[in-house]
């Protein structure tokens, strides 16, 4: 092993890679697109406020303004005003694709002052049950407070809301390690299956064997390139996850071994798949058979804990599961003991595939 030759070959491989847009797409852009889509679709549900359209027929009287401020203050709903001249609110809601509305009747302020009973009209859509419940609870709570104040009483029992555990984890917290795992898998697998089969066909390995570069040096330089890509992807996912979606993930020291060993594992696996295939076409098929189940069943997009119980053992035989589980343990829970188990599994698999791949893969012909 001559590191000078590794250093000489590395930029040549990197150039060839960077100049092929498809490779860079899978390595860096694809995971970014995924985190933006999945982050945007799933991180809003349950955590943010339900929009509530309010038609104030009492024309911003002191009492109606105070009531709406109290509603906004619950942080359960966000109030948006609809003009009193807009007509029937129910029709307005359906034409504007809104699911919750509130009508404050004319004379609201005067009726409160006279202790005349008031009816607030609340519109909800039963098909979005959780939102309906949130709206009803919020309006009911504010109305109760108002009733109590008007009755001249003060609150005796006040609940205090606390979370279980130190942090609440949201979907994005699981998505970031999942997508880092995905890019550790996808870009080496797709590239190496392609490289090992088309380079064999085009006799590029024969060409390299005419130089002093050894197979081990070639493989080292190649793996180093995918480790670099994995790092870049990790930084991207962390930055987008934290700053765009407020994820609670951080780059702990125990994250690093997975970003180094993961690419070794999947470069070797891709090389092996391409080497044992007779043509680039069959290599592509074999590569997809290996890659796609791992892409979806290793906890990439959803935590394995949400899988139906019969699917969990399947996840447990996929190498990527241990990479993602380890990354989650390292980045999210920072629990070293759980990380070590995952790391040992990944390390053993990486060494095994590396040895198989270098055995099967030859530059010269007998």
């Amino acid at each position, binding site marked *: 092993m001559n590191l000078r030759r590794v250093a*000489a070959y590395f930029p040549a491989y990197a150039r060839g890679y960077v100049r092929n847009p498809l490779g860079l797409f899978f390595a860096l852009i694809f995971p970014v697109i995924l985190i933006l889509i999945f982050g945007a679709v799933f991180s809003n549900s349950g955590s943010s406020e339900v929009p509530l359209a309010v038609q104030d027929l009492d024309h911003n009287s002191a009492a109606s303004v105070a009531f709406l401020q109290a509603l906004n203050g619950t942080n359960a709903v966000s109030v948006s005003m609809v003009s009193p001249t807009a007509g029937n609110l129910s029709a307005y809601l359906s034409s504007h694709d809104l699911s919750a509305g509130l009508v404050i009747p004319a004379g609201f302020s005067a009726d409160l002052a006279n202790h005349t009973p008031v009816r607030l009209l609340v519109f909800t859509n039963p098909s979005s049950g959780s939102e309906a419940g949130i709206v009803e609870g919020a309006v009911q709570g504010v109305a109760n407070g108002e009733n109590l104040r008007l009755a001249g009483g003060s609150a005796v029992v006040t609940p205090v809301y606390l979370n279980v555990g130190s942090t609440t984890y949201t979907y994005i917290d699981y998505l970031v390690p999942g997508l880092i795992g995905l890019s550790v898998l996808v870009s080496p697998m797709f590239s190496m299956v392609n490289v090992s089969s088309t380079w064999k066909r085009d*006799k590029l390995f024969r*060409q390299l064997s*005419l*130089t*002093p*570069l050894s197979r081990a040096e070639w493989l080292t330089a190649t793996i180093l390139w995918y480790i670099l890509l994995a790092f870049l992807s990790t930084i991207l996912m962390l930055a987008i996850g934290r700053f765009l979606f407020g994820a609670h993930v951080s780059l702990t020291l125990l994250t690093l071994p997975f970003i180094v060993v993961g690419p070794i594992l999947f470069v070797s696996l891709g090389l092996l798949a391409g080497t044992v295939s007779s043509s680039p076409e069959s290599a592509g098929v074999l590569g997809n058979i290996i890659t796609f189940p791992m892409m979806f069943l290793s906890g990439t997009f959803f935590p394995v804990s949400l899988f139906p119980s019969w699917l969990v053992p399947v996840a447990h035989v996929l190498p990527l599961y241990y990479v993602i589980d380890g990354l989650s343990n390292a980045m999210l829970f920072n629990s070293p003991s759980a990380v070590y188990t995952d790391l040992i599994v990944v390390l053993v698999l990486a060494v095994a595939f590396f040895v198989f791949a270098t055995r099967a893969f030859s530059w010269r012909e007998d």
Partner: protein
Amino acid sequence: MTATIEVTNLVKSYGALRAVDGVSCEVRAGEVFSFLGPNGAGKTTTVEILEGLRRRTGGEVRVLGLDPWSQIDRLRTRIGVIPQDFHFFPKLTPREAVRLYARLFAVKADVDELLARVELLDKADDHYDTLSGGQHQKVGVALALVNDPELCFLDEPTTGLDPRARRSLWEVIRRLRREGRTVFLTTHYLDEAQQLSDRISIINQGRIIATGSPDEIIARYGRPERLKIVGDPSLADRLASLGYRVERLNDGVEVELLSKADALRILESTAASGLGWTGFSTRTDTLEDVFIQMVGRLEDGSLPTGTASGAKP
């Protein structure tokens, strides 16, 4: 003269098939030596064994005094190879390719000078996959020369090239010889072998059937020089009756010459015959004629392979 390559009784078998079947040859320092043969004759298999890319089944091989399979690490830095169907990384430029090789071989290479001598300087910064077939081969030549090799292997370097690109590559090969390098060339183009080589081995079905300089091979295996007379076809009968070996043609006759003086006597007899004739020319066999005759005679069994292979001058 010292031998650069010595091959004795080389055999390469794939199962029952003997792709190379007892080849022996010797390449001398500083010469251009060619393997000439049809496709599938065993040229590439032999060359790849000499380059250390393939393991032999039997026989002895010494290239620059080394065993090319087991001592490839020492051999690699002293030889330059342009393999058959040379390919390179599609997204690298010729300049980057040469730099990469220089760094891998740990040699200082004048990149511009190397690219200039294969006439690629104007394409130095274009991606390999945008270059033509002839330019691809030139990248191959430039890469083979990065380590300043004393021995160059070129395996069918001009196959698939247009005539202009072929001639341009021939110039490069002639220059290699002028620089004192030994060149081992394989080709199935006879004119190429005849133009470039000091010595040739004709190989067919894994065996060498003739070895020597192009002139020696023609002299030994070709037919005698012939005189062609354009004119009355009945000239053939007249000349045959005088004891000459003739061949009838539609527009005249072709007569084998045993000596130069025969030509004068034949022309005198022709003039004396009173039969009409309009012109004459002489013709010697080219390497191509010899090659086609030899391969044909091998196939119909009239030329045993064993006798012809002893044709060293």
